[in-house]
């Protein structure tokens, strides 16, 4: 059993029965299928029967320009060493994805994380709205692209104020002015430019 056969096996298994929008063979150990939202559960349970019985990861990607979230499920088989990524696009304004807890029960915590970081709801997972990593969070989900972490940090955590009083240590002249001059020169003419 060699690994090119594994990729071919997977391609024929998935592409014959399911409507695949996009197949991407990354290398001989990784393959990605983009399918419709309604087919994810059926595809994952079939892969589980074929031996892809470990859910390695579940997360989301925020495609803000297309106003969509992309869900990614990564499953792994210990006999045929191929990571399979199942991707699907869901609406960004009302992100709802049915839980895959009946198939992979361990997804419970990944789904809680995805709910916390992206605000995706997972009906079927009884705990998906419980807090996991962020405690007492009071803003929009932080991994959405329209969240500004700098603004949140400035609002919430005070920034230390500094005076530009450089200490002359042991009677030596401070090099700070030379450093600033050098930084300015590099900005103007580049690192190898003339003085």
């Amino acid at each position, binding site marked *: 059993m060699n690994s090119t056969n594994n990729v071919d096996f997977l391609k024929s298994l998935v592409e014959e029965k399911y409507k695949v929008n996009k197949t991407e063979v990354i290398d001989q150990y990784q393959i990605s299928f983009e399918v419709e939202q309604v087919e994810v559960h059926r595809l994952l349970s079939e892969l589980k029967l074929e031996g892809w019985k470990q859910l390695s990861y579940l997360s989301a990607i925020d495609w803000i320009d297309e106003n969509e979230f992309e869900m990614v499920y990564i499953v792994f088989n210990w006999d045929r060493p191929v990571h399979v990524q199942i991707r699907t696009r869901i609406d960004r304004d009302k992100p709802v994805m049915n839980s895959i807890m009946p198939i992979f029960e361990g997804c419970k915590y990944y789904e809680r994380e995805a709910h916390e970081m992206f605000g995706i709801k997972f009906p079927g997972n009884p705990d998906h709205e419980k807090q996991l990593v962020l405690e007492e969070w009071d803003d929009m989900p932080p991994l959405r692209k329209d969240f500004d*972490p700098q603004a949140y940090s400035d609002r919430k955590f005070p*920034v230390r104020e500094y005076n530009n009083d450089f200490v002359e240590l042991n009677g030596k002249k401070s090099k700070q002015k030379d450093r600033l001059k050098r930084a300015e020169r590099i900005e103007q003419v580049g690192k190898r430019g003339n003085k």
Partner: protein
Amino acid sequence: MESTKYTQPVALSKKQVDRKWWEIGDFFRRNSLWMLMYCTGCCAIELPPAMTSAYDMERLGMGPMATPRQADVLLVTGYLSLKTLRRLIYTYEQMSEPKYVVGFGSCTINGGIYHDSHAVINQLDQYIPVDSYVAGCMPNTEAVMNGFVDLIELIKNKKANGWKNYHTNNAWYKKNQIDALGEVRIKDEFHQ
């Protein structure tokens, strides 16, 4: 003729006697510091060489302690997310007095490379008093050892007063904690 070998004992006031006892206490305290390592960030990797034969902090009289109630020094090694800050405040308040705090790395000073993170605080001394800082990202082990010597000097000169400030400015510290955390009480699945 009056003896020069003998001086008449002077009656000390209670305040002076207390001061003498504190000086004796400080002598023993600074030569036997038990530290609680709160290894939150990457600066914790500087502690193994500082503790073992390379720099051997036991020659300063410092040793590791496993529990907060018996420890004297709290080492905060690196960045603190809001989640760990809650646990850190719990830990700090459990320590018996006098207690000292050493902040490692630029993260505890001004946020370091996490200055723009939504989950990481910028200044540790807004939430608990810090006696000594070790600057650097990350500080090398000489700097860490130097920070410990600085702390010992501070205790000797009676300047390590962070734990007293926590009493006198308690309202200010509590307000900052609540501004950043919402509520200090931990509510997770293990505390329900």
